[in-house]
C-alpha cells in the first residue's frame, strides 16, 4: 500500500509524500489517519467541479493526466476583466472553493503548462505571471513543475539540473536526445509547452455553447421563484444574441451554479428553431423550474443554446392566417408537450415500403413538417393495431381456411363472415431477428359485426413432425 494523496499537515509537518509506502508513513506519523483511495469517485467530483467552473469561462478542461496532481484548466482569454482583473479572479476562485470546503491553489499564465507549474509549485494560492513574463516566472521553480515523468526528474537531478531556469541555457539538441519518452521529445516538448513555443489546446469538458446569456446575483437564490423572475431577462438576452446572427435555438440549457460548487441543469429541446423569448420561457415553465435543486443557493444563472440552426427572418403576412403561422403554432405545441410529457411523446407516422404490418409504419418524433410518405399497402389495413399481436385460440374447419370461431382475451367469438387469406411472406432480404414464418391474414367478422384482422403464423405443410412448429393464430388489429 502506498500513499495516494496527503493533506497539508502531513506534507509540511511530517514530510510525507504521495508514492510513499503506507508502513513507512505510519512509522513517521503514528497517528496517521488514512482512507482507501477512490479514483473513480474523485474523477466524478472533479468533473462536477469542472461544470461549475463554467461560471468563469465557457472552456473548462479537466487535467487528470498526473495522478495526485489533478486540476482544472480554464481558458480565461479576454475574460479576466469581468471579474475585476486577474488577481481578483484568482482570489475569488480560491475564496469560493474554500467556502465550498475545497482547499485549492490557482495560477494564471500565458500557457496551460506555466499555469500548471505556478499553481502547484510557486507556493502561493493565487499566482499571476504577467503576459510575456512566463520565462522569468518559471525560472525558480523545480523541474518537476514541467510535468515530467519520474525517470526524467531523477536523471535531471543526477545532472544537477534542479530549477527550470537551469534548462534555459542548455542546447536543445542534447536535451532532446537524452530525455525521450515513448511519445517523443518529452523534456523539450514540455518546456516548449510551458513557455508557449508549442501550442497546447485544451480539451473542454463540454463544448462551449455558442450562444449564452448569464446573470450573477449578489445574494444566492434559495428558492426557484427567484429563477422564474430572472429567466425572462436571460431569455431576452439570449434571443437578442441569436437574432444578431440569424439563428434559432434547437436545444436549450439552463444552468444554475450553486454556492457549494455544483451545477444543476435543466434542458429543453425544440422541434423547430426558435428565438421567441416567450416560447422559450414557456418551455422551461412546462418542464418545471421547481425541479432545479438549488441546495443552499445558486448565485449564477446561465441560459445557453446548445444547438442552433439558421432561422431566417420572415416577412409578416398581411392577410389572414397562413401555412407558416400554422406551422409556428404546431412547433410551439409540440415543444410544450414534449417538455412536459418527455421526448418522443408526440409522434407522426412515417411510411416505410414494407408489406409487413409491424414494419410498414414507423412513428418518428414529430416536427412541424410531416415526415416523408410511402406508397400505401396494397390491401386496406385495420384502424387499430395490436403491437405486438395477441395470441388467439382459433378453430378452423380446414387446416388452411379462415377460423369459424375463436377466443380472444377470454371472450368467445363466432365468425359470421371472413375474407382471406392475404399471404405475407417474411422479408428474406432483411436479417431475421427470429425464425421467419409465413403469415396468412384473414378479415373476420363476428356475429356482432366486429371485424378483426387475424393471422395464422406458419404453414401446415412445413411442420415436419415438430409440434413447436404447429401454426398458431394471432390477433393483429381491429377495423372500425
Amino acid at each position, binding site marked *: 500500500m502506498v500513499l495516494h494523496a496527503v493533506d497539508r499537515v502531513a506534507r509540511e509537518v511530517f514530510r510525507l509524500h504521495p508514492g510513499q509506502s503506507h508502513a513507512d508513513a505510519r512509522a513517521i506519523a503514528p497517528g496517521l489517519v488514512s482512507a482507501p483511495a477512490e479514483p473513480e469517485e474523485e474523477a466524478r467530483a472533479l468533473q462536477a467541479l469542472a461544470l461549475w467552473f463554467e461560471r468563469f469561462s465557457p472552456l473548462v478542461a479537466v487535467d487528470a493526466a498526473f495522478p495526485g496532481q489533478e486540476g482544472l484548466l480554464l481558458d480565461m482569454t479576454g475574460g479576466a476583466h469581468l471579474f475585476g482583473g486577474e488577481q481578483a479572479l484568482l482570489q475569488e476562485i480560491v475564496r469560493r472553493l474554500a467556502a465550498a470546503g475545497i482547499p485549492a491553489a490557482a495560477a494564471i499564465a500565458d500557457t496551460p503548462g506555466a499555469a500548471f507549474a505556478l499553481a502547484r509549485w510557486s507556493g502561493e494560492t493565487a499566482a499571476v505571471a504577467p503576459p510575456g513574463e512566463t520565462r522569468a516566472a518559471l525560472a525558480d521553480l523545480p523541474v518537476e513543475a514541467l510535468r515530467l515523468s519520474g525517470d526524467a526528474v531523477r536523471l535531471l537531478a543526477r545532472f544537477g539540473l534542479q530549477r527550470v531556469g537551469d534548462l534555459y541555457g542548455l542546447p536543445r539538441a542534447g536535451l532532446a536526445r537524452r530525455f525521450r519518452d515513448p511519445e517523443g521529445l518529452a523534456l523539450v516538448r514540455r518546456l516548449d509547452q510551458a513557455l508557449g513555443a508549442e501550442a497546447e489546446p485544451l480539451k473542454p469538458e463540454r463544448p462551449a455553447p455558442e450562444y449564452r446569456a448569464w446573470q450573477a446575483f449578489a445574494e444566492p437564490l434559495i428558492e426557484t421563484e427567484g429563477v422564474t423572475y430572472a429567466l425572462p431577462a436571460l431569455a431576452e438576452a439570449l434571443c437578442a444574441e441569436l437574432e444578431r446572427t440569424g439563428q434559432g435555438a434547437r436545444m436549450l440549457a439552463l444552468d444554475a451554479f450553486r454556492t457549494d460548487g455544483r451545477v444543476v441543469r435543466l434542458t429543453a429541446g425544440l422541434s423547430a428553431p426558435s428565438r421567441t423569448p416567450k416560447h422559450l420561457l414557456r418551455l422551461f415553465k412546462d418542464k418545471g423550474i421547481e425541479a432545479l435543486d438549488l441546495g443552499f443557493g445558486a448565485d449564477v444563472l446561465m441560459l445557453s443554446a446548445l444547438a442552433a440552426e439558421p432561422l431566417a427572418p420572415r416577412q409578416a403576412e398581411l392577410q389572414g392566417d397562413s401555412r407558416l403561422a400554422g406551422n409556428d403554432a404546431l412547433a410551439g405545441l409540440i415543444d410544450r408537450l414534449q417538455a412536459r410529457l418527455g421526448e418522443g411523446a408526440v409522434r407522426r407516422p412515417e411510411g416505410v415500403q414494407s408489406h409487413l404490418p409491424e414494419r410498414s409504419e414507423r412513428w418518428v418524433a414529430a416536427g412541424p413538417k410531416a415526415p416523408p*410518405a410511402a406508397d400505401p399497402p396494397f390491401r386496406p389495413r385495420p384502424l387499430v393495431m395490436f403491437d405486438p399481436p395477441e395470441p388467439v385460440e382459433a378453430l378452423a374447419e380446414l387446416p388452411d381456411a379462415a377460423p369459424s370461431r375463436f377466443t380472444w382475451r377470454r371472450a368467445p367469438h363466432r365468425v359470421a363472415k371472413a375474407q382471406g387469406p392475404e399471404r405475407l411472406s417474411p422479408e428474406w432480404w432483411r436479417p431475421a431477428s427470429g425464425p421467419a414464418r409465413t403469415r396468412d391474414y384473414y*378479415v373476420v367478422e363476428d356475429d356482432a359485426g366486429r371485424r378483426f384482422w387475424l393471422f395464422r403464423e406458419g404453414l401446415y405443410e412445413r411442420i415436419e413432425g415438430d409440434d413447436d412448429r404447429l401454426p398458431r393464430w394471432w390477433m393483429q*388489429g*381491429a377495423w*372500425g
Partner: protein
Amino acid sequence: MIQTVARPVFPNLHALPAPEPFEEAAASHPQDFAPVLAFALSRALMAAEGRGDGRPLAMVSTVPFEHERGRLSAWGARGLGLDPARLLVIRARREPEAQWAFEEALKSGALAAVIGALETPSFVATRRLDFAARAGQASAFVLRSKPPSDLSAARLRWRVSAEPSADHPLDPRAPGAARLAAELVRSRDGGSGRFLLEQDHETGRFRLAAGLADHGLAPQPHALQVA
C-alpha cells in the same frame, strides 16, 4: 311561444346532427373501441372539411390505454380518408397528463381536431375541454371505452356499437362495407336517435346507410367463391 321540435319517425331519413366543437363517443361494449374511433375520426374529418380546415389532427391517449385497446394505425386512418401526413399521436403516461395535453392541443390553434381517449374526465375537465376547443377553433372528441354514467359538458354524446356489415357484392361469405350504429344519447337541444352508418368505399367516411331503396348492386346469383 314554445316551439316543439319534430322527432324523426324514421331516424335514418333524418340527417345526422351538425358537428359540435365538443362531442363524446362511448363504446357500448369494450371490444367496440375500433368502431368508436372510426366514428370519431370520420366525424372530426367531416367537421374539418365543412370548415375548409386543412390543419392536422391529433390523437391523445395514455400508454396503459394503448396497451389495452390497441394503437391507432396510420394506414388504417388512411382508409378513413385521413392523409397520414396530417396525423399526430400524443402519448401521455397517465390520464391527468393526457387531459392536460388534450387541452393544450385544442387551445394551440394548430390542430383541426383532437381525439382523446380519456376514461374518467371530471365534469370540470370536460367544461375546460369545451372552452379550449372553442378557443382553438378545433373539434374535440372524447372517446370512452364503456358507456359512461357521469356528467359531461359535451354537446353531443354518442354510444357506438359495431353492426353486421353490408353484403359483399361479389362474395356472400366476405364482409362488405363496414357498418356501425351510433346512438345519440344526449344533445343540448334534446334531440336523440339511432343512426345506422355505413362506410363509403370511395371516401372512406361513414355516412348514413341508405335504408329504403338503395341496396347497391344486386347480390350475384352464383357468387364467386373467393377463398
